[in-house]
């Protein structure tokens, strides 16, 4: 018997963001709740907490922080690549790499910041931007490597 079905709903809503449906179901049933009522409540409440169509302002800061982390991480990977490349010690290529990487990278970071804050990019477009960040920085890293190494060879 479940005279107060809102108790089940409240428990599900409070824990669904952290715990699996299976764990919630097991806990409720082991506390004596009707398995059918628990199942119905899980279906009724749905995965509503999953999608927030209006991201909080903090999400913008998070996106920028991740952009910076990617920028630095890709730069370090690029430097490691140069350290292993044979033309690294012949001179010329490393300063070019550094200048190109920092210059182009900062330009992209500023562009992202402008798009996020001024244009009010959010929701779907922010998602597309998030999708694009990884290949953009990957291409940036290897593009500058190729450019720098070709200058080093000539």
């Amino acid at each position: 018997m479940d005279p107060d079905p809102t108790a089940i709903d409240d428990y599900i809503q409070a824990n669904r963001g952290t715990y699996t449906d299976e764990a919630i179901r097991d806990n409720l049933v082991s506390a004596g709740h009707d398995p059918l009522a628990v199942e119905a409540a899980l279906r009724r409440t749905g995965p509503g907490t999953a999608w927030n169509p209006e991201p909080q302002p903090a999400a913008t800061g998070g996106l920028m922080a991740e952009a910076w982390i990617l920028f630095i991480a890709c730069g370090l990977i690029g430097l490691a690549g140069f350290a292993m490349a044979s033309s690294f010690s012949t001179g010329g290529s490393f300063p070019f790499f550094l200048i190109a990487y920092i210059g182009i990278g900062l330009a992209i970071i500023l562009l992202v910041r402008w798009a996020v804050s001024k244009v009010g990019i959010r929701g779907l477009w922010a998602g597309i931007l998030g999708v694009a960040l990884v290949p953009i920085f990957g291409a940036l890293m290897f593009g500058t490597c190729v450019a720098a190494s070709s200058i080093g060879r000539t």
Partner: protein
Amino acid sequence: MLPVLARFGPITIGTHDFFTMLGLLAGFVLYYRALRRDGLLGGPITLISVAAVLGGALGARLITSWEVLGDVQSAGLPLTYVLTHGPKSIIGGLAGGYLAIVLTKRALGYTLSTGDYYAAAIPLALAIGRVGCFLSELPLGTPTSLPWGMTVSPEAAAAFPRCPGCGGPMHPSMLYEIGFHLGAFALITTRGPLLPVRGDTLKAYLLAYGLFRFGIEFIRGNEVQWLGLTGPQLVLIPLVAWLLLHFIRQLRSGVYRMPRPQPAIA
């Protein structure tokens, strides 16, 4: 060895590529079914899935690319050759896909952990994909005198520029890995989420795979890069450390002690 599965006129179907695609397809079918079951299909999850594929593809090519950069450059090839013909690593694929998912979810403001929806799909995809590796890549592993050691013909070995153990029986290391993934797949599909916290079943699988793969690398036959460790082992150290740190934090936070619901009134 079966590097080419079939030829249809000018079209050649490589064994490795075929099983990679088959594994991806099987994984996506499982992932899709799990999402549909929980009513999560929609625009945001589609974007997140696309990001996972892009990030995975890029990560697979990038994470061990440093191993061949010197060779590529000394051969006079452009560094973009690494992206188009360089080594691929499933460790990089997993790491790149994971990073892309995290970034996209943050950008979308998508707060629900979806890791567990991949928890059965990834081991199945990897088990199928490794069949392609087993049929088309050498060396199979380091030399062994164990009764299940496998040999390859000299003609097959000659097709590979580097195959140190091909003169005798080798560990079938890909088969060991297939066994691990199939075991994980069976465990997750029969038991459901292994941990009560959303996303932690996937992380537990990734941690177990990371540790398993680190060990299997000792008999894989990959080139030693530094301190007696292969490239994948060096890459795995920070990834496994991050996952260990995650579980230590989870344990210390007490999140696995789930709040008790109010008892039902009879």
